[in-house]
């Protein structure tokens, strides 16, 4: 049994001007110990998809269809209290922009202690010991627990966030752009820290990024999202070496790199689709170099090729029903 199974997930945002489907028929599974990457441009629905796993989709958003099955149980049937129990204990999240996620008027140690007490550790000395060991685990000297978040650098604050997320040794950790906005050397150190923790705790993780390189260094499998759909799902190496979907290919070709020969890079023309009134066709068709007449007529279905999933008319022979 997979640790997490997301089936036909659809998330809608009800707005005054209409309904935007931010996540559209998304399917994926996470096996124990695996790290799955979710990649796509801003607004492609990757964060919304992750938030619906944690039960964090709130009005005007709502899960319209589909199931989120965690350890065999459908989370959509869980009450708020049951979800609250699950969060922190079994699943946790590291968000982007740690500076906004930490309480500025509590010391770092107090904040970690607060969460520990919430998880049932009442003894004062035990709490202090755990705070020390958690900070040490993420590479911060325990003496620094008396510091306030503003006295920490961005990278250290992100380390504290990781410590907080790891408190109860959750089975599933959602990493939402954990290293975006930090300096390269700090990024590298955080990547190493996350990879270490993953191995030590046999962590299952869902990593959200807009940046292929982070995915390449942490994940074994990757799902590419575009306009709310997962357009391709594959092994990271397969995707990198032979992307099937034209969007995945364009993403890889637009990525500048510093090793190897200098290549001419190609940007993706146009801009992401407007989700309020999407066309009944492939959403990428307008920006796609390989688009045919069929692409403008109907939405491509999931097609399996060599155990990879791709949503593109180039790979399906089926005719449109419309």
């Amino acid at each position, binding site marked *: 049994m997979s640790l997490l199974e997301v089936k036909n997930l659809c998330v809608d945002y009800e707005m005054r001007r209409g309904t935007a489907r931010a996540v559209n028929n998304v399917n994926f599974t996470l096996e124990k110990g695996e790290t799955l990457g979710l990649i796509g441009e801003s607004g492609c629905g990757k964060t919304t998809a992750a938030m619906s796993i944690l039960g964090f989709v709130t009005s005007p958003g709502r899960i319209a269809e589909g199931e989120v099955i965690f350890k065999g149980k459908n989370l959509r049937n869980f009450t708020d209290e049951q979800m609250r129990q699950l969060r922190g204990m079994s699943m946790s999240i590291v968000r982007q922009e740690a500076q906004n996620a930490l309480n500025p008027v509590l010391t770092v140690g107090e904040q970690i202690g607060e969460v520990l007490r919430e998880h049932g550790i009442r003894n004062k000395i035990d709490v202090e010991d755990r705070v020390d060991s958690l900070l040490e685990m993420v590479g911060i000297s325990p003496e620094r627990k008396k510091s306030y978040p503003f006295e920490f650098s961005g990278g250290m604050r992100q380390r504290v966030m990781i410590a907080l997320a790891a408190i109860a040794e959750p089975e599933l950790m959602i990493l939402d752009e954990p290293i975006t906005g930090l*300096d*390269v050397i700090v990024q590298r150190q955080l990547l190493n820290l996350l990879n270490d923790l993953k191995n030590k705790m046999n962590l299952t993780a869902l990593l959200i990024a807009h940046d292929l390189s982070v995915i*390449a260094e942490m994940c074994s499998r990757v799902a590419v999202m575009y306009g709310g759909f997962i357009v391709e799902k594959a092994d990271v190496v397969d995707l990198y070496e032979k992307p099937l979907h034209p969007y995945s290919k364009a993403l890889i070709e637009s*990525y500048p790199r510093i090793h190897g020969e*200098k290549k001419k890079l190609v*940007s993706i023309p146009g*801009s992401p689709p407007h989700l309020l009134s999407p066309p009944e066709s492939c959403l990428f068709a307008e920006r796609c170099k390989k688009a045919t007449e069929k692409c403008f007529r109907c939405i491509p279905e999931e097609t399996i090729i060599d155990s990879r999933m791709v949503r593109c008319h180039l790979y399906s022979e089926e005719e449109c029903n419309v």
Partner: protein
Amino acid sequence: MSDNELVLKVRNLKKYFPVKQKEGKRNKKAMLRAVDGLNFDVKRGEILGFVGESGCGKSTMSRTILRLISPTGGKVYHCGEDIAAMSDEEMRKRRRSMQMIFQDPFGSINPRRSVSETIRMVLKIHKICDSRAEEDSVIRNILEEVGLTPVESYWDKFPAMMSGGQLQRVSMARVLVLKPEFIIADEPVSMLDVSVRIGILDLLLSMREKHNLSFIYITHDLATARYVCDRIAIMYMGRIVETGPTEEILGNPQHPYTKALIAAVPEPDPTREINELPLKDWTAEVGGEDSGCRFYPRCPVGIDSCLLKTPILTETAEGHKTACLSFDKL
């Protein structure tokens, strides 16, 4: 080379900020050396990259060059003329040919002005056009040039209705309409999605081609710097530690800090081995000591004399200079 070919000449540029430093229980006044003795030239039509991490002084440097803040010491020459000696009025005129593009397009463009008004404002301030009709045609041309087409659909748009990439094109248009000689682009693509970054960088390159513009491209991202820059200067704590042609720096880095930076960049290739960072102790306290190498506390190859002697930029290959005592044999 004649000074006319050098659009910008910077000599021993310094900017210090007074700060309070704790010494025991007392506060002591000290100077934070944000920019500490920079020397470089920018030729006409050249793109020079400044690469460094947050707090290394890149942005302070650009503000000092444009005299948005006044330098503590040193000289900045624009086409052979000393900027510091100019009156405020002269400087205002001069800024027409020295422009800046900022990192955050959402913060640097007035949200209550439409695209055409944003650019019209610039034309008015610098008194470029005689009539409204002339303004309209200038705005139309520049929007076409930066790729905001069809122009009509962007004319009355407000920033809230546009994406980061489109707004950054508006920033470019607003700057280019003044026909500057020299532009400082301060992290122009770091807030944008990877897929639109290349579009903006290509625009920058084509503007250079078309108008023979010079750029200072400031970034923390070596990969985009490689894409646009002819030469790169690596900055660490207010000083240039290594400079040279882009491919030479990336292919043959000499300074231990440059080596660490290059090793840290994540690559999209999942088959590549991940290396250990060649650093001693990244968390080591660093101060802005007056003498000695500022990278010493983190340097894996530092020796005792690094603490005493300030390394100066020494040529290690043609056009490639490194400020590290291991090359400074004098």
